[in-house]
């Protein structure tokens, strides 16, 4: 999944200033692309499905047993039942909701850590930067799934929030790297110097002179982190290290369907829906990210 992470870009060429961006908008060049609209519509539909679906359809208990082992789709159970005889469609709605919540929290945690470490490293420079980026690179090299497995063993009872935090604290390094590169190219801008001469401290410099100029960047990072958070959760749950207490997530659905051999017995309704849904969620987030990236960085646009 190397595409799910921001690549290191030659420093500076992303640095479209707010001013020039606004100028482009005025010229009417920066019309959101079809891909952008498509991904927003797709994501909107997924959120409605996960949040409003259970309420509108009155299916609030994904653990209720409604049939036997792998009952095929019927009028009562639109997507059949799983290995415990639970309704797959209901599970799908609740599972999507869990995935979105975990992805959102994990994405926010990872982006926050990445932005803080990245701006501090990029802004302070010198030894602080060396140390922080050394740490980042070491953590980057270690497969996050391994750290996630080790952490999940340590934390016995995992709620949705603990899962999200565990995922968040292991996936910030890409963001930290990207934000650092961006900060150190912004640091030498004139407006920063002027603010410093006016007596602004490090914190307020970062808050007022650096961060506003990479808001687009932070948003992009968050979208990527959310996508990777959702996929990480699904991978962990698939391994059997997902949230406990009867929570349903798309990964947990896959876990049970693999353990109970739904694939080899041909019970496609147990594993195809969560698989497709995970793919669609990840794809629409990546599409959103790449179309926003092209919008903010016209150099990526082909002439």
């Amino acid at each position, binding site marked *: 999944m190397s595409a799910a992470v921001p690549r290191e870009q030659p420093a500076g060429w992303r640095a479209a200033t707010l001013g020039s961006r606004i100028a482009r908008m005025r010229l009417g060049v920066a019309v959101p692309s079809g891909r952008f609209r498509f991904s927003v519509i797709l994501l909107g539909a997924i959120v409605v499905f996960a949040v409003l679906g259970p309420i509108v359809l009155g299916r609030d208990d994904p653990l209720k047993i409604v049939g036997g082992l792998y009952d095929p789709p019927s009028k009562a159970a639109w997507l059949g039942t799983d290995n415990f005889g639970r309704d797959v469609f209901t599970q799908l709605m609740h599972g999507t909701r869990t995935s979105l919540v975990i992805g959102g929290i994990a994405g926010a945690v990872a982006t926050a850590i990445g932005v803080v470490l990245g701006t501090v490293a990029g802004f302070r420079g010198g030894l602080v930067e060396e140390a922080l980026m050394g740490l980042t690179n070491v953590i980057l090299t*270690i497969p996050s799934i*391994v750290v996630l497995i080790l952490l999940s063993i340590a934390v*016995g009872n995992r709620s949705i929030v603990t899962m999200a935090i565990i995922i968040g604290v292991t996936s910030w390094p890409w963001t930290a790297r990207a934000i650092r590169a961006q900060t150190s190219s912004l640091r030498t801008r004139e407006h920063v110097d002027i603010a410093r001469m006016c007596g602004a401290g490090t914190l307020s410099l970062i808050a007022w002179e650096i961060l506003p100029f990479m808001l687009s960047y932070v948003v992009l990072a968050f979208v990527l982190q959310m*996508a990777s958070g959702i996929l990480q959760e699904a991978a962990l749950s698939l391994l059997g290290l997902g949230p406990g207490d009867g929570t349903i997530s798309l990964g947990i659905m896959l876990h049970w369907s693999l353990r109970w051999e739904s*694939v080899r017995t041909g019970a*496609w309704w147990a594993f195809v829906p969560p698989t497709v849904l995970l793919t669609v969620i*990840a794809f629409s987030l990546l*599409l959103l990210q790449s179309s926003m990236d092209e919008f903010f960085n016209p*150099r990526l646009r082909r002439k």
Partner: protein
Amino acid sequence: MTRFQRYLLFKTIWFILAFFAALAANFFLPRMIPGNPVDAIVARLAAGGTEARALQRVHETFVREFNLDQPAWKQFLTYLGNLAHGDLGTSFAIYPAPVRDLIADALPWTVALQLPAILVGWLVGNILGAIAAYRGGWFDRGAFVSSLFVSAVPYYCLAILLLYGLTVHWPIFPSSGGYSYNRSPEWSWSFIGDALHHYWLPFFSLVLIFIGGQAVGMRSMAIYELGSDYVGFARSLGVPDNRVVRYVFRNAMLPQVTGLALSIGVLAGGALITEIVFSYPGIGTVLFSAIRQNDYPVIQGVTLIVLIMVLFSNFLVDVAYGFIDPRIRAAQRGER
């Protein structure tokens, strides 16, 4: 000291540091439970329905192997000492099988699956991305969107769909394992043929994903390089396009090599789950059953092996980069 030697030295020191960081992480992370770790683990096993005799065994093993009455740093030293002797502990579930043997049986399958998949995926993906960047037009649009889609498909999802499609719905490939049930591993042509027959599906499901991710990255690198000044200058002197494109690909390739080093970890982690889906007899499947049975020594053994393999291949890629990048190589010969 030449720049190349400095580069090697730096990478070696970095590798050693990262290695110990990985060891420490592998040791301390699972022990972050408050209170006596053994009691906590035993309590969880008991809640999971493990029988009393096994619990007793777990307790004894832990105390004996890890000097649990000692302070944490002494335990860590003991752990390092055991590792130095190649001792990864004893499995709870398959008592008293040494973890080392379990992993040694599974590891060749994992390496045989992942190494070719990563190399082939990297190569094909980069070629595809470079062609897309150069050709532009419909080829670019098609290749880009489908690469984006393929790279957005979680590897396990693609694996599950391929498994269903090509073994159950259209039974072209065998549905599980690394070889047929009625066989046991041996060095014979017929066994190798059988193993290859089981190999293709997990291999392709990994390769497809790698291709997608690499192609997307290479495309944007190559587009960036195509717009650079040296391309314009070479063209203005009449250097033919195929020659210029070679410069571009080479230069766009260099960051892709570093990118490979950084993404090996992600790739390796993903491949573990692919093994689980296909019940491939590698360490991913070992890990899956260990997690199901709360077999902590095996889990930790597998994570350790994965960490070491990933760090080592990282190191190799970094050293190879030193040879590939002519700027570092030139420094090696003492040219200024």
